[in-house]
């Protein structure tokens, strides 16, 4: 199952890279995608049955992406303000937050979202204790609960719907 999905993904990427496709490119792509799927197919997905649920796509495209893009834009304006201010108004520090997510993909997406949202960047993940270490450019809260609310509150419940 995982190999077939990887074959489809690799073949789609091959067709997009050879845009305005002709017969030779399409035939060569079958061999290349089959080779990739044969060699690395078992690493691609752990639970492929989750992909069959259409509600997850709905949540991804209509809840996660707009929130993510808006936060990304806010982050850039925030960084621009801090960089251009003559006194550099920063109070950096590394804080610890707790997460309820368990699967690898969900934690990866949470860490990436945290890195691209205002003022925060993930430094390390401790999967056994379910904690993330976050470098925060303007520390507002040092204890774990309120820091979790500040940093991960917006994304955690959406990612739980998508990946868990």
């Amino acid at each position, binding site marked *: 199952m995982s190999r077939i999905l990887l074959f489809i993904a690799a073949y789609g*990427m091959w067709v*997009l*890279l050879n*845009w*305005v496709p002709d017969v030779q490119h399409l035939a060569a792509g079958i061999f290349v995608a089959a080779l990739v799927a044969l060699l690395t197919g078992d690493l691609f997905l752990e639970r492929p049955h989750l992909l069959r649920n259409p509600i997850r796509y709905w949540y991804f495209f209509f809840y996660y992406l707009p929130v993510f893009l808006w936060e*990304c*834009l806010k*982050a*850039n304006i925030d*960084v*621009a303000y*801090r*960089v*251009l201010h003559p006194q*550099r108004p*920063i*109070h*950096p*520090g*590394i*804080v*610890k937050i707790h997460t309820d997510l368990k699967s690898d993909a969900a934690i*990866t997406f949470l*860490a*990436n979202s945290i*890195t*691209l949202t205002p*003022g*925060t*960047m*993930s*430094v*390390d993940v401790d999967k056994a204790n379910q904690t993330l*270490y976050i*470098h925060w*450019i303007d*520390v507002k809260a*040092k204890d774990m609960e309120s820091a979790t609310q500040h940093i991960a509150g917006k994304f955690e419940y959406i990612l739980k719907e998508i990946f868990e």
Partner: protein
Amino acid sequence: MINVFDIIGAVLITGGLIFDLLGCIGLVRLPDVYNRLQAATKCVTLGTCGILLGVIFVVGLNATGVRALLCIVFVILTAPVSAHVIARGAHRSGIKLWEGSVVDQYAEDREGEV
């Protein structure tokens, strides 16, 4: 005859260039590795994605546009991961935070391990 897509593309490319330049100014101005990594990663990732989106609007959805779309997905997936990995490596190699920093709970937790 002025094309609307050309104007949208030029605005997106200009915004992307401004964010790229701001990210590199942050790389020069901010005091320690972690702050530099933050400013540079955020601004340069969004700036380059803005440039690529503007290229799609300017050239249209032909071979160049489709490749630029793939490139956007690729940059937005890999840039945060490399920032995370460099920050972790820098902290483990013993680089201290800037002296104006407020708190470092990662170092407190790692003292028990080592």
